[in-house]
């Protein structure tokens, strides 16, 4: 008798769960319509895009992509974006893991003071300083180079990187291991690169993911510091061409698609890690 009641309850629960799932799936389909619309429109002729905006393309117009590819000078723009992102991420991981380690292992007044100095950066939006940043970049002769974007993007991401590394080292890297290495005659630098760095893989993954998204999607720093076309990034190419050809409808969607395609691939393959990385970065940062 009692058993049956429990089974009934669980069956009722299961039905509720099933209904919830159906509702969420329908909502997700609606949520996804803009992305679907973007993808199918890239392959249509202007007439077809107007007549059946949500239908699948009858004739697949890949020429749209060829045109967009050429107008955006895509290979060059992609190369610049990749170059900026890879260098910025590499620099951030190296310098903030070093600094985070130094501050995690030093309990002097200065360790704490420097940490607070870096942490204060979380409260200061760099956007308030664009006038003086513009002037500084010009003065040191970095204007119109990818290095201006790289270094400013690095500076923007330093506080969070240091915070994540310091936190992780304090909570998860055992001192005993380092002491043992020291007894074996490791120098401090060896100790860091051979013993500590390999233990930091989870937090390195978090930092890489967050900084990759931040730098790849950063539009204001390239807009401020890169004027010449040969140094410009994908986002600048998208905005330049959409401004110029705003009447040529079908030429524009492939440009948007080419604009998001690299990150879309990154997301398809790394989805689980990206979601985990964003959550870890935010909850601790």
């Amino acid at each position: 008798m009692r058993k049956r009641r429990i089974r009934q309850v669980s069956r009722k629960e299961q039905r509720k769960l099933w209904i919830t799932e159906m509702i969420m799936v329908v909502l997700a389909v609606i949520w996804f319509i803009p992305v679907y619309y973007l993808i199918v429109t890239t392959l249509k002729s202007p007439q077809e895009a107007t007549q059946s905006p949500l239908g699948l393309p009858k004739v697949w117009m890949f020429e749209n992509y060829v045109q967009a590819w050429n107008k955006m000078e895509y290979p060059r723009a992609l190369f610049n974006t990749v170059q900026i992102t890879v260098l910025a991420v590499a620099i951030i991981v190296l310098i903030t893991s070093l600094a985070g380690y130094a501050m995690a292992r030093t309990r002097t007044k200065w360790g704490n003071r420097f940490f607070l100095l870096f942490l204060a950066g979380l409260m200061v939006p760099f956007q308030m300083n664009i006038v003086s940043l513009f002037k500084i970049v010009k003065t040191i002769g970095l204007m119109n180079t990818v290095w201006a974007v790289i270094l400013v993007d690095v500076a923007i991401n330093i506080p969070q990187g240091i915070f994540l590394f310091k936190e992780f080292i304090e909570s998860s890297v055992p001192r005993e291991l380092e002491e043992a290495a020291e007894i074996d005659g490791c120098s401090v630098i060896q100790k860091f690169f051979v013993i500590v760095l390999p233990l930091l893989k989870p937090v390195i993954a978090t930092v890489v993911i967050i900084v990759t998204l931040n730098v790849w999607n950063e539009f204001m720093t390239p807009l401020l510091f890169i004027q010449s076309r040969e140094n410009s990034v994908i986002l600048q190419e998208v905005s330049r061409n959409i401004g110029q050809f705003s009447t040529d409808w079908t030429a524009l969607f492939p440009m948007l698609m080419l604009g998001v395609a690299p990150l879309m691939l990154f997301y398809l393959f790394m989805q689980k890690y990206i979601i985990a990385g964003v959550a870890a970065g935010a909850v601790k940062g």
Partner: protein
Amino acid sequence: MTKTKKKRECGSLGHYFILFILPALIIYLTFSILPFFFTFIYSFTDYSDIKIKDLDFVGIKNYLTVLKTPLMKIAIKNSLIYAVVLTGFQVILGLPLAVVLNKKLKTRNLLRAVYFFPAVFSSLIIGYLWNFILSSSDYGLINNLLHQLGVNTVNFFTADRALYSVIFTQIWQWTGWAMVIFLANLQGISPELYEAAAIDGADGRQQFFRITLPLMCPSVKIIVVTGLIGGMKAFDAIYSMTSGGPGNATETVMTVMMDKGISDGFYAVGSAFGVCFFIIVLLISGLTNKLMSKWSEAIG
């Protein structure tokens, strides 16, 4: 005892401490701290594109200009609306979404991935995409569908609506982001709490308000603070959808800063505007911190 311990710990890095923090410190000093101080200094001078040398001290003149210029007041107001509405919806929609997607649904990983998807991309491109979707021309998806249904078309970019249309697209983009952070918080709540509540006869709604909501305080705080500050910085989506128009209807702090501070060469006024922006951001985070800790006291 503690003193010797301290010395030894310090000694374990010794002068390597400086060496290790130096690279980060140099970049941070040059591109974060130095510009911060220059912004304050410039804001009290007559620095502009017609006077780039021998700057004179002009007191608070630039700040008065900021306070007197209608465009800058509109920009601050719009940014505040943008930040508050966007953040509000991120919490109101993201929180239930996270609670539901924390249940044992068969497709929950796929569902999470779909809702989070737009957050991966640049707001600039998302803005362009929605610009086409909301457009009033023949090509606009929504108006096209409305037309096919025989309903009157809607202009989403009138002076009254444009700001909210942009905010709407950003809610679509950033709700999944909030959901992921709420989910991380939810997964840290012990299931035993719910079991105990169920034994005591608490139904789903009671469990949500008595257990889930109070324990979600940390992630709500993160979303509220980062959402409000991120909203104040809004630029990319505005740039691609309305460029501040029609008229000044969607000017935000950052669109005005780019126009006046950089393009038009009013460097000093731009700096003063930047300082005002900084003060607003400080006030917002101070205020939310205070309110949120009151909230957690009230329910805790």
